[in-house]
């Protein structure tokens, strides 16, 4: 169209010189990355306290070293990469805490320190930092120290309820006993196995023992909607169903599914690690598939694999598939089906 002739010089008096101009929306929800990270950390508090309760001062040392190592690694690496230092967002703190949760209490302290370093520097920062890592940093850190320091990583101590338990007796985890020696031996060592698993009075990594404490934190996260059921519940149910069907010695459908759900790191892994936003799918239906696949891999490794526990490897394997699942199951756009109908 023809622009009408400009018959008057433009005048743009600015009545309010300091107006902020930006694209909307001009309101934001009260949510931030840091708040999410610190909330998940807070949800791990009951389990952390239980770890200290059962394993005493060694547990505290492991936790402090892991977290410090993670935070220092993050800060130094971000300095080297000339990025903004974001240790205050809680992400490195959480990774360090998760490393601590995944190692035995009486482990030489340099091992979790190495684990945190690998998690932050190699798995996270070298892949582009927060949001760009393919694998769960804490789990890669743990996987590396598990294969590098196999002996100390699988030498667990008996929870003694003694703050000075530096010379605690070693004891195999229930899953390891089951794998190596069978059910009879398991019941001999742990006469009240289900109760022990629920309350955490058994050998295991720091944070995975007290099922009840982990569930408490998980319930908090679900109520607060920081995590949803789509990954953890299918994950746990799949492990339960598969171990019930195939896990028994007296034939199909005789497995102790409750034992398998509470033993090892399933509860910790399903609620706190498989739910990692960055390394899991973000489409809800893809999350269910992700959860089921994690569960199937866990059961497969536990029942048929070389390792007694399979949660870590199951999640890491499925991390690879997360982008593919998202792409394959992308959400159906509002009105897309109807749009096809119209074209016909």
């Amino acid at each position, binding site marked *: 169209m*023809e622009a*009408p002739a400009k018959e008057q010089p433009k005048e743009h008096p600015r009545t309010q010189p300091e107006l902020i101009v930006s694209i909307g929306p001009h*309101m934001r929800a009260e949510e931030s990355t840091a708040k999410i990270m610190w909330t998940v950390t807070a949800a791990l508090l009951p389990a952390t306290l239980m770890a200290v309760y059962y394993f005493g001062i060694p547990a505290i040392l492991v936790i402090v070293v892991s977290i410090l190592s993670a935070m220092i690694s993050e800060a130094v690496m971000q300095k080297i990469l000339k990025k903004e230092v974001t240790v205050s967002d809680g992400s490195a703190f959480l990774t360090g805490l998760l490393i601590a949760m995944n190692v035995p209490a009486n482990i030489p302290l340099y091992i979790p320190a190495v684990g945190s370093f690998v998690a932050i520097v190699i798995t996270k920062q070298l892949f582009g930092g927060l*949001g760009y890592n393919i694998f769960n940093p804490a789990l890669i850190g743990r996987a590396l120290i598990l294969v590098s320091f196999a002996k100390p990583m699988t030498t667990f101590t008996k929870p003694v309820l003694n703050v000075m338990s530096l010379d605690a007796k070693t004891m195999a985890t229930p899953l390891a006993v089951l794998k190596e020696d069978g059910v009879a031996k398991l019941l001999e060592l742990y006469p009240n196995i289900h109760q022990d698993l629920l309350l955490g009075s058994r050998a295991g990594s720091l944070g995975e023992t007290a099922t009840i404490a982990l569930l408490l934190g998980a319930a908090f996260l679900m109520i607060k909607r920081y995590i949803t059921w789509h990954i953890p519940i299918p994950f746990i149910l799949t492990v339960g169903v598969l171990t019930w069907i195939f896990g028994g010695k007296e034939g199909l459908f005789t497995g102790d599914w409750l034992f398998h759900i509470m033993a090892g790191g399933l509860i910790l892994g399903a609620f706190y690690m498989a739910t990692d936003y960055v390394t899991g799918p973000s489409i809800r239906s893809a999350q269910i598939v992700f959860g089921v696949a994690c569960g199937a891999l866990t059961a497969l490794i536990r029942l048929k694999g070389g390792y007694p526990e399979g949660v870590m490897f199951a999640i890491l394997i499925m991390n690879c598939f997360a982008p593919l699942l998202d792409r394959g199951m992308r959400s159906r756009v509002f009105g897309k089906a109807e749009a096809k109908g119209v074209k016909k």
Partner: protein
Amino acid sequence: MEATSVKASATFSGGVHPAGNKELSSHKPTVTAALPKRVVIPLSQHIGAPCKPTVVIGQEVKKGERIGETGGFVSAPVHASLSGKVTAIGAFPHSLGMDVPSVVIESDGKDEWVAGLRETPDYTLLSPEELKKMVLDAGIVGMGGATFPTHVKLSPPKEKPIDVVILNGAECEPYLTSDHRLMLEKPKEIVEGLRILMRILNVKKGHIGIEANKPDAIAAMQKAVAGSSDIEVWPVKVKYPQGAEKMLIKAVANRTVPAGGLPMDCGVVVQNVGTAAAIYDAVRFGRPLVERYVTVTGRGVKEPKNFLARIGTPFSQLIEEAGGLTGDAAKVIAGGPMMGMSQYNLDVPVIKGTSGILVLPRAEVSTKSYGPCIRCARCIDACPMMLQPSLLGLFIEKGHYEDARDYNLMDCFECGSCTFVCPANRPMVQWVKRAKRELAKKKN
């Protein structure tokens, strides 16, 4: 104590819950703004072709006199909103953020209507075609903010029969209360406007959708339709963007507008309640659209108010009449906080789509920088169109506009729900606008 909400389950999937903040102005009866000394009337106040001016500088005009002729089918004429003298025709700042050809009229203080306005006591004596012509001549456009010319929506092609008309009284944008006040103060006019729409479209059943946080407006509208069965009032769930056309159709009629399509593709026409009232005025009294309800609100103005203001009134005048800016006022927005446009110049005029002027104080304006996407999927849950805003953002951030298009970029109507919920503060809407523009550039 009056109920603050009624029960409503009708809604859509997705959406967000920003704080309403409507209590700042919802209880305040509308006041007529002072007659402006000077109005700036943009020749483009609608989606579609801008108008051509039909007046010259120095010409005397009366209120309601046509000053801009439609520039095409998808267009709407503009009219003088007061009587006086045309003093300038040229480019003036517009609330869309650019300069737009406009006609400036200095008031003569008499505020006289143009002669020969045709009154129609009984619209049922007129044919649908005649009624439609009146809507066009009155320059009526969608007054909820989209400003799509109304007569175009009333001219569906033959192969798209319309059987449902919905009036949009959802007013899901936080802060705004102009539709709320209109429903309380002019329910009969709205209902009559709806009946005119139904006659034009030959539809037997009309619906009015109102968010459940306005129980008094729901009651007022129910009272206005009491005793007749042709119109039904639907409380709908309080959730943003419930007032988006597609979402309202889903909630009220349970129909789904095909992706990339229009409401008429599923037999529906949606009009804002303000549009319906304007149609009533146009048909009953022959009056063109020269004034509208405008909420001036937010904690950045001293006395939030609802105004009946002339088209062309400068924002600065209404802000002054609302007590002026507070000392910490930091952002002035034309429209609501979710989809409104922030302004750099307070002399921009009220146009047909200006539902509100929102002033936010410094404390409520976020200038935080954004961080990396942590793929938390909050945006995916919030998106009413079921898109993947996180992925769109990642693509566009790196300039992969075609990839974004493959992930249904064009289905985004920029409601801002994704950006509202994003914990990393990522500006998804800004990126989407950029990508659409870049793709359009490539096409040409």
